[in-house]
């Protein structure tokens, strides 16, 4: 990691550490949980080019598992989170086994139907509390020392987990594995001909994506103190896509930005009932129709160009951001490179 990146990271963490004094901590914790969820989703869609329409179940069921582990088994917070993460990782693997033999729309529908099946299981299973949800999840202590029932303490704990998760995510997408995922998205047949086992790659990707989603779900369970059917509902499948698209598919920070924005929309308009859905739908449709690279995807090349022009550091090759394999992209990123 270069010293600039380290400086950015330290600066960002310092700002994040000061934030709870200005913004409601539970909102921030929820935003971090959703951001990790969206990152996990982005790994599949943004990097591997696989559209899952059933990620709500991975997020929501982790919240149940984690909450149940903390409440009924009295596991310490960090172990409960691991339980939730592992459960969703396994569930993600099951998704992969069932769905990854198909592609495109068909895969989306299969994952959608799977998530609906898990929804009905959550409605009826004895440990989820049905319509009432799993109430009163104890926040517990970190390593038996730090009392997490205080929102501020839990916030710093979450922040630590969040930063570690993002670093891990960065490590994954910049590793050879991440490169192969991009290659698979670009041209699957050619990846096979280079000797990579695409089926296994997809399974691993599904499992990782599930684990990240599960980590997000577990953090949310502790932040809110309950796990409910709202998280498993099929609209959440769309929410996570909206977050990722709005922020920018296949960009590192896109899902984080998207998660914060979508959560803000939901919170500010929550009292207005149907309006939230309308606004979300309109934003969603606008993105799909007009700027499919999302906020970060649109701004990053421009900001980068500005910065570079400003520091006169010359053109640094930047990978163009394709969305989904086969998608015909406007070539302004590639075109502008020769200009810069």
């Amino acid at each position, binding site marked *: 990691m270069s010293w600039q990146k380290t400086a950015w990271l330290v600066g960002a963490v310092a700002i994040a550490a000061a934030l709870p004094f200005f913004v409601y901590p539970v909102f921030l914790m929820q935003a971090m949980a959703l951001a990790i969820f969206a990152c996990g989703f982005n790994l599949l869609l943004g990097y591997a080019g696989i*559209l899952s*329409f059933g990620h709500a179940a991975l997020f929501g069921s982790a919240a149940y598992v984690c909450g149940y582990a903390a409440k009924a088994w009295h596991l310490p917070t960090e172990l409960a989170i691991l339980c939730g993460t592992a459960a969703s990782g396994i569930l993600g693997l099951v998704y992969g086994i*069932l*769905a990854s*033999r*198909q*592609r*495109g*729309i*068909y895969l*989306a*529908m*299969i994952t*959608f*139907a*799977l998530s*609906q*099946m898990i929804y*009905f*299981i959550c*409605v*009826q299973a004895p440990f989820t509390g049905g319509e009432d949800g799993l109430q009163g999840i104890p926040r517990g202590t970190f390593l038996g020392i730090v009392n997490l029932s205080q929102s501020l303490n839990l916030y710093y704990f979450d922040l630590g987990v969040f930063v570690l998760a993002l670093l891990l995510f960065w490590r994954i997408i910049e590793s050879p594995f991440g490169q192969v995922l991009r290659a698979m998205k670009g041209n699957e047949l050619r990846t096979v001909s280079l000797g990579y086992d695409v089926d296994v790659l997809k399974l691993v990707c599904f499992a990782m994506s599930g684990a990240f989603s599960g980590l997000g779900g577990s953090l949310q369970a502790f932040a809110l103190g309950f796990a409910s059917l709202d998280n498993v509902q*099929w*609209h959440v499948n*769309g929410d996570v*896509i909206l977050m990722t*698209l709005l922020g920018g598919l296949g960009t590192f920070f896109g899902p984080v930005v998207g998660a914060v924005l979508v959560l803000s929309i939901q919170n500010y308009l929550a009292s207005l*009932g*149907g*309006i*939230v*859905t*309308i*606004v*979300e*739908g*309109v934003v*969603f*449709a606008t993105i*799909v*129709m007009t700027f*499919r690279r999302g906020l970060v995807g649109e701004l990053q090349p421009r900001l980068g160009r500005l910065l570079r022009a400003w520091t006169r550091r010359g053109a640094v090759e930047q990978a163009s951001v394709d*969305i*989904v*394999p*086969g*998608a*015909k992209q406007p070539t302004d990123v590639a075109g502008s490179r020769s200009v810069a």
Partner: protein
Amino acid sequence: MFGIPLPILLGQLMLGLINGAFYATMSLGLALIFGVLNIINFAHGALYMMGGFFAWILLQYFGLGYWYALILVPIIVGIIGLVIERLLLRHLYNLDHVYGLLLTFALSLVIEGVFRQNFGVSGQPYDIPTALRGGFDLGFMFLPTYRAWVLAASVGICLFTWVVVEWTRLGSYLRAATENPALARAFGIRVPSLITMTYVGGVMLAAFAGVLAAPIYQVSSIMGSNIIPVVFAVVVIGGLGSIFGAVATGFLVGLLEGLTKLIYPPATNTAVFILMVVILLLRPQGLFGKRNY
């Protein structure tokens, strides 16, 4: 069978068939649209809900009864479908097809939000038209006239669609456009208008199903959200290949639900999805599917 009295068994199967009639009509529309546009119309549930709601609105505010609704509502919703296709969907055809899915999902959010905002989530009752009240005593069970009508009407509309696609000139154009759009265009078939017509046709089927459903289920803004996952599962089980497959699987899944309700009630809602998983493991292309998508 399983120690269940015959009238109850037949009654449940009948209920299953009624549900199946809706699944069949809905998945038929989805299959048609998928065949030509290559997108999955996520807004199908919302348009079905719109069908039910417009029937209710026509009665409530304009005094137009069921039979008018049955004709008018599909036309109104068809026009809305026309606008959606011409204004929005059209611009996504040369992108990856998942964008079509995402756009129609966004539209379904908007439509559902508008109706929820204006009418809430509670159900609005819609009376069965006078001509279809009452029922027949078949000796072994009681069959309400309206249910028989729903069954007949949806089988009728499915047959009608099948005849149009398989036996008319328009249908042959449609099949040509499904098979190879570029070649069909080269032969002078207007594929873009054919695409529009297919979308409108599929949407009209959903609206028709919505009107049929209004007297059975209550009209509510969430009726589309409730049916769409099952319809998707039906499409996965049947495979996206054929019209016949979509219809047959619709009824099959309806019957399966009915039977599950008798044998093991808690699994009623999950049975379809379990069947889907089993089918995926044994025959990934679906029961009637030919190709891999």
